[in-house]
């Protein structure tokens, strides 16, 4: 029977308690509490990663990368206001003869779950 291989899992540690927002206000829908929720430092494949979720008006408005391993010498933030300048292009059909094709399958369910969980931290 094949056994598990790399990458070696890191034993999960308990999440660090998040600092409570100064003023906790429930949004009209009664779901998420406003504030910034700092996650625990996670031992990433390449080093430590720490993020903060920002809830405003009862909604997740930003996810900030507080700490992450990088070889690019700049800090990044997940949010429109801090977009690094990345190259863009209009897609165009290619006639190249390729060996393999990469495309999406039926992962929608997993995405949905991921999104649900991101917000559950602020409930």
């Amino acid at each position: 029977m094949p056994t598990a291989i790399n990458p070696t899992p890191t034993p999960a540690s308990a999440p660090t308690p998040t600092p409570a927002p100064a003023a906790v206000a429930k949004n009209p829908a009664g779901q998420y509490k406003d504030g910034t929720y700092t996650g625990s430092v996670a031992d990433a494949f390449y080093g430590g990663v720490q993020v903060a979720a920002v809830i405003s008006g009862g909604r997740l408005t930003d996810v900030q990368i507080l700490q992450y391993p990088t070889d690019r010498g700049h800090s990044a933030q997940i949010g429109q206001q801090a977009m690094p300048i990345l190259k863009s292009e209009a897609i165009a059909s290619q006639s190249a003869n390729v060996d393999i094709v990469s495309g999406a399958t039926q992962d929608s369910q997993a995405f949905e779950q991921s999104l649900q969980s991101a917000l559950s931290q602020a409930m």
Partner: protein
Amino acid sequence: MKQTKVLMGMPITVEVVDGNVREEDIGKIFKYFAYIDEKFSTYKSESEISKINRGEISAKDFSQDMKTILALSEETKKQTGGYFDISLNGKLDPSGLVKGWAILNASDLLKKSGFKNYYVEAGGDVQVSGKNKDGKLWQVGIKNPFKQNEIVKVAYFGHDEGIATSGTYIRGQHIYNPKSSGQTITDIVSLSVIGPNVYEADRFATAAFAIGKAGINFIESLVGLEGYIIDKDGIATMTSGWKKYTKEINGNR
């Protein structure tokens, strides 16, 4: 030798270029995927994961592979700020992680059998090794999210690496936008990630896609991963290191 089978609800293709490959070598790989399906499928009532979700197995009796997947899922959840999570309503569904992990394990099985030039592809996620049948770099096309039979970009693999693509275009939209509750994500349709192996590419592609348009920034921030995102208007944005996978660069190798 190249073979395709439908397992785990998706086509799985294994091509081994090395001349000494036998049919049973590839058969062994399909058997491994069948084993993974039997263990981790949430659609099979007798799978280990289904039994766990019914509370029929206690944690101490989980198989080693199950313990590994659960630990990796927890680790990935932390590394992605919760954007990747296998638990929903008290049930576990690790399928978002199992695919890339299983492809990588299958690839390592071929390596252990002594093969050097091959790829393993499952549902659009790929691990390559060595060179293709012409002795050239493996070429992986990124599917056009708007036209199923077309590709819009070609990545050339100079090393043994993996690529995974997340998107919404197969089963339509049912992801909501975390920044605007009640609305589905419509700004991005496809996000491909190349990483040191398909496991890393797959899990971070999944998480980055859940983040949305800014997911490409998350990929940019991670060492060893490059990404190519396509939005609803057909505009692609790539990380700063993506160009090392383009023909212009690899053509000189």
